[in-house]
């Protein structure tokens, strides 16, 4: 305790003794609150909202899927971070009793994580000086942080004792220590903070001693002094001894003898302990008070401190040693603190996210103060995974645009180059080499200029949209890869990858999209977590990777469940595919406008009625799409995909309607209707479309992606109101649509349809339609209705008789239709190879009563004729069935075999209503709207149920792979540990099962095991053999571990090994037996 005051750093321990005190009370634990976002996180939110826009523009279910999964992922990340912040529990804090302000001191934290858990990688402990006596505000924004540390030290059972270096800045008495657990969880995006406040026995934070001394009183009790207690007076001239220096009490010079001897004679006849210093405590600078006390003590004087301002109440207390002086000065400083700052100001302010929220500022800066992650660097692994993520997203886009493998290769090279540059050539400040920065800039500007110059005029713009613009997007993403220098820019890059992926998901309509998205999602999550974790601290001990793997699987399952829950509530989106690529009319112009033309552009002749079948692509390929329809001929229906329809709900995609029937052949009305120039065409309602305006109706938006060369027939569900098509569309009187060009593969058009929500009740309530129409007895009405009631002259009486018979008096038309459908279902069979009726025979009669076999045209024709015979207006419609819905992209895949014919019946209130007598679907519009998640669930369940063997095989393969991995790990461990290492592990396992601490040496382990055996068998002495066995095991293991002369391949050692292994087995058995016996004893 005698170091010179100015040289405190040389002997730090001398001025900061560490009489450690532990926490005095149970820690009070606050709630976990979010307090900051990791840099770059707002960009995810930004791109997510852009994704919502994409979903609205495309109506793509896949986009909704991505967005909902992202939202669920964010939710799960939030909860996970919250859980992670609650996981480390501060059990106790050991603090020094006395420190000097500004000096480093050690605080020991007892942290309990739980035996089967691991603290999150992003977790750290921030120690704050939350002194409660000092009324300094201690809110989260302006926390007096004194130190922080990570939980990365070795551990055995989930309890960590972590030393943290802290520096108290302000003198005073600290009786409360705040320990903030701060973590971003595995995702590291949202940071949580949970404060634990621990009351400690006051830590005296002494002020730094500051020269010079304060004025003090000095007195000498020595008999050799003159007794004057004035500061600076000499001790006494009586015996000729004077102080050597002013204030110097130890040594004095005896001048008379000095004079006699001629050399300096020093006496210490005035012992320093006889001099007492009384230092007043009211000096403004407490540091100077401490310095003065230290000076006095150093010189060996009796030093006292006078506290209390006025003379009357002043108390003078002896200061024992420098520690005591420091303590008193700390208390003095504490009093000052309390008197200067009003208590009421210690209002706690809430910690809010916005306080440290700088999403866009500080770009490229190592802004570690507001950055919850503290560091801006990243690992090469995270960078590579980010590149993989953006690469996958770009590949999704490239394949959607059919750009080919060259483009993918170029992108891969560009991304890899970006990784190499950003991992290897970025300097300390996070800047790339000048060449790279200039190069990136030049390429970006050049590409923009190229686009700008090339895309003049509408044609140029369209061409740019189809070609260079997406290419530019890809180029910019690749170039951004060169800019990734910090974690923040890396997150921005990931957010860009999210946008690209969402864009691609909106564009793509193929059935591989689900796999692409799954792959991309995995890499996206991996990239985010790798970015968050940063350089992994080396950890020893603690539960291993299995715990982490389990938690990863657990959280993934929670996330999937969460996403599914969100998705189940989300309806399948509807929206125009206006973000889809513009449909360029590459088809051939049709010769006669408004007429039907095949893909070659030639007008169609009527269907051959000789029974031969055309192929797809020919005008007569499917008779429903020609000018006439011979009920005895059916086209050769292939299985190729004709078109994909993006629509929230299934419907019949109607192409044409037929009104005129001559007993064998239906013919289209010859009127071609009016031409309407595109791209947006409003279709006026046609005859029979005008329903009761009071009825509820809704909109159904469908986008047709043509996948095969087709005739110029535009399909539509229900009643088309708006057509978006790049070309002229002829709207025919029956509502059918024809374009002026043929529809080639890649053509896209969007139809907005209106439909009346028809229910059986609504239809039934309209009664017998025939009666309603019979009331329209004026000539004009009759003329309008006549075509739909006209029967072919060949219609047989028995057909009409059957229709009459089933139409009971007073029965509503709806019920009549159902009765006809029921009759058809029972008395006829569906058969694609129905025999062709003989020449001149009425096809309907032949189907109903002769062959009783038929396909959709014949069944629908029969229903139409039967309805017409009852005075109900009806017509035949042809088109496609909805097809099969892809669960991820949400498009309906329509194949050639889905071509169909059905019946439309005119109801006075609701207009044309479709009925399909072929299928069991009673009413076309009756299908309920689904949800994205419901569809996925149904698909998953039906997939599992329909492929039990395959699913089982996949699960089994997964399990096999897992066990193979574990086996490999075990084999690696065995090789690493060696034979004797494995014996040691066995021995350790026996001990671990009986709670032998891991810090025991082998003999201690043996002793504890012996105790365990005796405890298990009370009253029994331990077997001599077991005792001998255990001794042998311990000796051999220690010998193997520590004896340098020990060699494993000696024959004697090998024999030893067998003996030890056998002994170990005996000990294991003995312990098992004892345990069993003990259990029996307790149970009986």
């Amino acid at each position, binding site marked *: 305790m005698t170091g010179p005051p100015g040289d405190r750093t040389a002997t730090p321990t001398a001025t900061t*003794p560490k009489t450690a005190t532990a926490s005095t009370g149970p820690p009070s634990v606050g709630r976990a609150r979010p307090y900051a976002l990791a840099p770059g996180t707002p960009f995810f939110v930004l791109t997510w909202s852009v994704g919502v826009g994409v979903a609205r523009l495309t109506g793509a279910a896949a986009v909704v899927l991505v967005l909902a999964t992202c939202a669920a992922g964010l939710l799960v990340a939030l909860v996970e971070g919250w859980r992670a912040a609650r996981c480390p529990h501060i059990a106790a804090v050991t603090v020094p009793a006395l420190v000097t302000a500004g000096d480093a001191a050690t605080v020991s934290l007892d942290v309990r994580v739980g035996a089967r858990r691991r603290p999150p990688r992003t977790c750290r402990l921030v120690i704050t000086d939350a002194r409660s006596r000092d009324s300094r505000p201690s809110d989260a924004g302006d926390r007096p942080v004194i130190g922080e540390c990570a939980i990365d030290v070795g551990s055995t059972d989930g309890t960590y004792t972590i*030393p943290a270096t802290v520096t108290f800045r302000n003198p005073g008495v600290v009786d409360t220590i705040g320990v903030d657990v701060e973590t971003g969880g595995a995702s590291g995006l949202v940071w949580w903070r949970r404060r634990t406040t621990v009351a400690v026995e006051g830590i005296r934070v002494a002020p730094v001693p500051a020269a010079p001394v304060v004025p003090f009183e000095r007195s000498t009790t020595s008999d050799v002094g003159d007794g004057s207690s004035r500061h600076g007076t000499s001790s006494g001239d009586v015996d000729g001894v004077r102080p050597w220096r002013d204030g110097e009490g130890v040594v004095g010079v005896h001048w008379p003898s000095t004079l006699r001897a001629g050399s300096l004679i020093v006496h210490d006849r005035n012992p320093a302990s006889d001099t007492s210093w009384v230092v007043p405590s009211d000096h403004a600078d407490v540091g100077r008070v401490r310095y003065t006390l230290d000076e006095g003590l150093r010189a060996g004087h009796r030093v006292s401190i006078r506290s209390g301002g006025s003379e009357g109440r002043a108390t003078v207390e002896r200061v024992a040693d420098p520690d005591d002086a420091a303590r008193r000065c700390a208390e003095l400083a504490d009093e000052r603190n309390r008197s200067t700052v009003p208590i009421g100001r210690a209002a706690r302010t809430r910690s809010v996210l916005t306080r440290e929220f700088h999403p866009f500022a500080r770009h490229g800066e190592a802004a570690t103060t507001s950055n919850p992650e503290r560091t801006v660097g990243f690992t090469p692994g995270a960078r590579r995974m980010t590149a993989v993520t953006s690469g996958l997203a770009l590949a999704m886009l490239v394949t959607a645009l059919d750009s080919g493998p060259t483009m993918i290769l170029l992108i891969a090279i560009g991304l890899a180059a970006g990784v190499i540059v950003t991992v290897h050539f970025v300097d300390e400040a996070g800047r790339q080499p000048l060449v790279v920065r200039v190069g990136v800039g030049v390429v970006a500007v050049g590409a923009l200029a190229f686009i700008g110059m090339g895309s003049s005029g509408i044609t140029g713009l369209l061409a740019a949209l189809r070609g260079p613009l997406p290419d530019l997007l890809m180029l910019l993403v690749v170039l951004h890869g060169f800019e990734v220098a910090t974690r923040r820019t890396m997150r921005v890059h990931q957010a860009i990858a999210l946008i690209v992926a969402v864009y691609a998901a909106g564009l793509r309509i193929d059935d591989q999209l689900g796999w692409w998205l799954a792959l991309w999602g995995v890499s996206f999550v991996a990239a985010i977590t790798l970015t968050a974790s940063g350089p992994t601290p080396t950890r020893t001990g603690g539960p291993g990777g299995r715990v982490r793997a389990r938690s990863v699987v657990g959280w993934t399952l929670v996330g999937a469940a969460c996403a599914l829950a969100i998705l189940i509530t989300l309806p399948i989106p509807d929206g125009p595919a206006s973000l889809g690529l513009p449909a360029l009319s590459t088809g051939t112009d049709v010769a006669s406008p408004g007429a039907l033309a095949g893909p070659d552009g030639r007008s169609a002749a009527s269907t051959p009625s000789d029974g031969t079948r055309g192929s797809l692509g020919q005008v007569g390929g499917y008779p429903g799409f020609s000018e006439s329809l011979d009920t005895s001929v059916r086209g050769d229906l292939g299985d190729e995909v004709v078109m994909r329809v993006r629509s929230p709900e299934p419907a019949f995609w109607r192409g044409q309607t037929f009104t005129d029937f001559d007993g064998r052949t239906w013919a289209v009305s010859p009127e071609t209707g009016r031409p309407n120039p595109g791209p947006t065409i409003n279709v006026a309602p046609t005859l029979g479309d005008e329903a009761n305006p009071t009825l509820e109706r809704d909109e159904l938006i469908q986008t047709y992606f043509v996948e095969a060369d087709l005739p110029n027939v535009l399909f539509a569900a229900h009643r088309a109101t708006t057509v978006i098509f790049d070309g002229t569309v002829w709207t025919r009187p029956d509502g059918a649509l024809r374009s002026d060009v043929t529809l080639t593969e890649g053509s896209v058009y969007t139809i907005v349809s209106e439909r009346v929500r028809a229910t059986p009740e609504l239809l039934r309530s309209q009664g017998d339609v025939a009666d309603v129409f019979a009331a329209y007895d004026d000539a004009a009405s009759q003329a309008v209705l006549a075509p739909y009631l006209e029967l072919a002259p060949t219609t047989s009486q028995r057909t009409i008789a059957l229709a009459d018979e089933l139409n009971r008096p007073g029965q509503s038309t709806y019920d009549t239709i159902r009765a006809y459908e029921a009759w058809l279902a029972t008395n006829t069979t569906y058969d694609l190879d129905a025999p062709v009726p003989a020449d001149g025979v009425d096809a309907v009669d032949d189907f109903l009563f002769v062959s009783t076999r038929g396909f959709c045209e014949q069944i629908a024709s029969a229903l139409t004729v039967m309805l017409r015979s009852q005075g109900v207006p009806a017509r035949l419609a042809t088109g496609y069935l909805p097809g099969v819905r892809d669960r991820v992209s949400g498009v309906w895949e329509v194949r050639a075999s889905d071509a169909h014919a059905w019946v439309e019946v005119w109801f006075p209130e609701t207009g044309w209503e479709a009925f399909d007598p072929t299928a069991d679907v009673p009413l076309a519009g009756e299908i309920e709207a689904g949800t994205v998640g419901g569809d996925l669930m149904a698909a998953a369940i039906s997939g599992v149920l329909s492929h039990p063997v395959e699913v089982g095989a996949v699960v089994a393969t997964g399990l096999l792979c897992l066990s193979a991995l574990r086996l490999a790990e075990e084999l690696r461990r065995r090789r690493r540990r060696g034979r004797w290492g494995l014996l040691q592990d066995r021995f350790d396992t026996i001990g671990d099962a009986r709670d032998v601490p891991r810090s025991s*040496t082998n003999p*201690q382990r043996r002793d504890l095991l012996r105790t365990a055996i005796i405890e298990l068998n009370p009253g029994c002495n331990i077997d001599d053999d077991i005792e001998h066995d255990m001794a042998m095991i311990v000796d051999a293991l*220690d*010998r193997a*571990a520590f004896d340098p002369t020990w060699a494993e391949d000696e024959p004697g050692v090998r024999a030893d090994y067998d003996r030890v292994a056998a002994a170990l087995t005996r000990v294991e058995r003995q312990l098992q037996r004892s345990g069993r016996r003990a259990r029996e004893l307790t149970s009986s």
Partner: protein
Amino acid sequence: MRDVAGRLAGAIDTVVAGKHQVAEIAVASVLSGGHLLIEDVPGVGKTLLAQVIARAIGGTFRRIQGTSDLLPGDVTGSLVPGDDQHRYEMRFRPGPVFANVVLFDELNRATPRTQSALLELAEERTVTVDGQSHPLPSPFLLIATQNPIDIGGTYRLGEGSLDRFAAVVSPGRADPQAELEVLTGRRGRPMLAAVDAVVSIAEMRSARQAVALVDVSDAVASYVIALLEATRQHPQIRLGASTRAGVALIALARAIAASRGRTYVVAEDVAVVAVAALAHRVAGTGDVNAGRALVAECLSTVAPPTV
């Protein structure tokens, strides 16, 4: 070698009841060539333990009682006028430290001057008086006792002084069985007379050589380093154990290994002596009892090496 240790420990056990572990460490400290400090409250057999060790070892034995007026010269020996023939010559009269075994009772009652003189010569194994060096007999063994509770009239040993002792042992109170044997006279001071010198000086020398030849593997050395590091990281320890403490610890562990009949040190040997070897070298407050608890705590945080 094992035999030597066994005989010494046996001799201690016949006199001091129920203190086999302390006896083992004491013997190890003797065999490692280090000095031993026995520290405990009065009446638990400190002096008896020291005496029995001294008696069990053959060779010369001296005893010094520490008092506050004991001067360094009283310990080391001093220059005295010569005999009748050489009346005017100053002759060195060797002090009580010139013996193979020196028992210094109540070390903390001696003044710091005497303490440091004693401990310095114990370290150097040489007495220098008036420029003349007088080597102490070999082997030289210092066994000191002190009472940590008695504060009045004592001078606490400084950290540097404590560091000179290889081990500090504290016998502690005997258990009832051992107390019964002492009270009935089957053990304890009456038995002291029955102890003969069981180990000769030559045997001691060869035993010490054998101890020095015990192998220390890197694993054990790393374990010791981990222990030292643990004491340095411990928040309640002001100054962790030094490298010299590690050297002393290894030396003691060697002796334990040898006395257990091994030619190599195992982790257990280190664990057995760690508290005795480090307790007085870590706390820095001179309170060895506190140091013991802290070192035990450090010991429980470091996992010992295995195969």
